[in-house]
């Protein structure tokens, strides 16, 4: 520990909060797509894409649908323009417990053929089993998880009242009104008739004729569904105040407590229009503070094409910072949260600005991939315009994913952590979670009309702690803050769903370097109710389950270690 303290002091001296907890770790990912049993090609129209409907691709979710203790995989699959109601269908893969999967879609009655876009996971009925909300081009779908009963997923869209018929993209569950059940926010994109697509003529990007949209097309407003209990929701968009001055082209949403007041706020990422931050005023009321807080646009007022949304404490001040992925010839953006009141674009400060200009970013994740005590960043990339080449648009159609390793106060691109970082894909959605229960974070990445890719984290093994939550009703998908104190360091994770159209594992992953098994740790959890709980224990390489209201946590060794 002396060495660690010396390192911590040195880091503090240079003004960095980041502390290397142990020996330098080596980032490493290995593609296991062909061996893990996920052999699936996504559908999103046809290539080359000719309409804006075809370019987003489908989302992905990692969640434990059968409560057997491992992460299963859901894929929201699209269709084609000639029949958007009858695609090849979304899929559900069950994890065998060792990171290998088998398709159980038919077995569990998953029969979603409609053009699916994204997915949200939440236990809307509080039975302890995670349900699926699938956003679509066409009416969205709520599937109740009845695995414990009939062994199937049951379509309850109509009775629940959540079948928004418009083109929806991302969605997120969260108890935004503090009544102990999860509400649902759905982002909608734009008005689009696949049978009468807008005229392409005159549409140019960097002098190249391209498909139409979103500019010139009519944006669609989002919707906030309030969970009334008993399996019913109501549209509370207007009554809650989640109504901006102008609707945006919604692509992403994250529900988290942005200002640390104990209430869940709603951040919405919009394409080419201002982002929204609906501040929770309590009692189910919200106010859009996007522009006032500084998160609506980048540092110079640019309204960006926000796709992916990532939450993390990049500057270590205890407040959630927001990283968003954007279009090519623009930069991704990191808004640092200044004590819950202001957001300041600090993309340059952390080394993430100009390096991203040739890339068009989608799904992303901020995780401690090398378990060294700070969070690294993964960004999936790929252009929407089939015409894109470096010559024509300064950006290729297929692009490499970006991995940024946190080193001190900056992020540094790491191109050698696996062959995928030198391979070009038409990547879209991502989901992050520990597929093989070894405590480090693996990656699932979809590609447009291409294979779903699975990357196993093979970084130098360091000690970890994995924290999962259960609310009072046993629900696992809990939008909450988990804070770990270990040694001299404090790390924070906001469990908030996922990035673009997707859902990450509902767990807080902490790397704790080379600590000893007897070192004590402390946990602080801020639940959606605003209540705070503190727990302590010893031992690393464990999965810790914290139940709301319980005095004792459950800690079990990671099976994959």
């Amino acid at each position, binding site marked *: 520990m002396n060495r660690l303290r010396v390192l911590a002091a040195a880091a503090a001296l240079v003004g960095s909060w980041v502390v290397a907890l142990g020996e330098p770790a080596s980032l490493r990912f290995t593609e296991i797509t062909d061996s893990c049993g996920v052999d699936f090609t996504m559908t999103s129209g046809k290539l080359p894409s000719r309409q804006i409907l075809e370019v987003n691709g489908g989302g992905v979710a990692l969640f434990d649908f059968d409560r057997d203790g491992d992460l299963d995989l859901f894929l929201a699959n699209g269709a084609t323009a000639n029949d958007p109601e009858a695609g090849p269908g979304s899929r559900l893969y069950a994890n065998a417990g060792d990171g290998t999967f088998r398709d159980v879609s038919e077995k569990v009655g998953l029969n979603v053929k409609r053009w699916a876009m994204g997915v949200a996971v939440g236990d809307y009925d509080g039975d302890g089993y995670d349900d699926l909300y699938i956003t679509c081009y066409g009416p969205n779908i709520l599937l109740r998880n009845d695995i414990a009963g009939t062994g199937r997923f049951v379509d309850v869209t109509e009775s629940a009242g959540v079948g928004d018929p418009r083109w929806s993209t991302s969605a997120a569950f969260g108890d935004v009104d503090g009544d102990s059940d999860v509400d649902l926010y759905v982002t909608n994109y734009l008005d689009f008739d696949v049978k009468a697509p807008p005229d392409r003529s005159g549409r140019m990007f960097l002098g190249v004729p391209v498909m139409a949209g979103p500019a010139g097309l009519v944006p669609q407003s989002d919707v906030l569904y309030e969970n009334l209990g008993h399996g019913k929701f109501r549209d509370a968009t207007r009554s809650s105040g989640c109504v901006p001055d102008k609707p945006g082209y919604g692509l992403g949403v994250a529900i988290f407590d942005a200002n640390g007041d104990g209430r869940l706020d709603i951040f919405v990422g919009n394409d080419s229009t201002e982002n929204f931050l609906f501040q929770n005023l309590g009692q189910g009321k919200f106010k859009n503070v996007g522009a006032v807080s500084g998160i609506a646009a980048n540092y110079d007022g640019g309204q960006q094409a926000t796709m992916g949304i990532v939450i993390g404490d990049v500057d270590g001040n205890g407040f959630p910072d927001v990283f968003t992925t954007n279009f090519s010839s623009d930069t991704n953006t990191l808004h640092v949260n200044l004590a819950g009141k202001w957001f300041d674009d600090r993309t340059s400060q952390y080394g993430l600005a100009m390096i991203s200009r040739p890339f068009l970013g989608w799904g992303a994740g901020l995780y401690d991939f090398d378990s060294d005590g700070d969070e690294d960043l993964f960004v999936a990339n790929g252009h929407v315009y089939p015409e894109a080449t470096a010559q024509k648009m*300064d950006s290729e159609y297929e692009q490499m994913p970006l991995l940024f390793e946190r080193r001190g106060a900056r992020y540094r691109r790491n191109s050698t952590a696996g062959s995928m970082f030198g391979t070009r894909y038409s990547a879209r959605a991502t989901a992050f979670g520990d597929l093989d229960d070894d405590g480090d974070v693996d990656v699932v990445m979809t590609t447009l009309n291409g294979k779903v890719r699975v990357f196993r984290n093979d970084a130098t093994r360091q000690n970890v702690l994995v924290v999962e939550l259960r609310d009072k009703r046993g629900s696992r998908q809990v939008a909450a803050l988990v804070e770990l104190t270990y040694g001299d360091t404090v790390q924070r994770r906001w469990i908030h769903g996922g990035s673009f159209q997707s859902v990450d594992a509902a767990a807080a992953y902490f790397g704790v370097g080379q600590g000893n098994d007897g070192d004590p740790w402390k946990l602080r959890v801020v639940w959606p109710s605003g209540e705070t709980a503190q727990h302590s224990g010893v031992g690393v390489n464990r999965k810790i389950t914290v139940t709301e209201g319980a005095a004792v946590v459950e800690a079990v060794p990671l099976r994959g270690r």
Partner: protein
Amino acid sequence: MVWIRHANPGFSGPAVLALLLLLGAIGGPASRAAPQEVEQQATPAAPLPPPGFLKGCLALIEQKRYEQARQLLAPVVAGHPGWARAHFYLALTYHKENRYERARELFQHALQLDPEEHSIRLFYGWCLYYLGQLAASREMFDSLLAAKPEYPDAIFALGLIDFDDDDIDSASGRFRKAIALARKGKDEATEAKARARLADVLVRSGELQLARDELVRSIELNPGNYETYFKLSRVLQRLGDSKGADAARRDHDRVRQRVRPAGPRQPPETP
């Protein structure tokens, strides 16, 4: 060799090219040509275009008729592969459209043909900057300043690169130097953008009132840069002046609408 400003979207446009013409910085092959150009043009594969050809092309660029300029320049470049200035102007047509990869190749070729031409080096440096190739961009601006140490736009550019490298002290010093040189040269546009960027540095260090002062001065110097109003609104908001912030935001929207009306997806403005 003369000083010219970089034609970046926020502060550039026809005025820059007009300035180039006025200064006689770049003319046709008869008016000014590097020695190797003369040599290579002595045995051209195609006949030389008429006198004033390049001035005509510049006029088209000034009018934002980039495609037309390209149609004139492309065959000339093909017929005269050693003509640096024609390559340079063809590169400019792409650069002005934010098509930097295509411009980069042409700037690179033009610079190989005429390594002494500072204006090529300046635009090439900016082009590399927009492509995110900051190390190469820095090298280009450094090489320019080695020959012309008091070139404000190159100093400003290096300040931006320092800012992206999180070297705040150096960025601040460069912006201040660019401001001083621009004032000396009565170059209000460069002074305005350097002040706006100095404000970014001051915001980073929490000196909000000083940042506000720089932004106000920047707007006085260049009221057409809508981004500065946005930055001012952010600073005023944080200083507790909500009314002022709202007014600055409205100014931003108004000027932005005028300068950059809504339309199909466009690449964002660059620094």
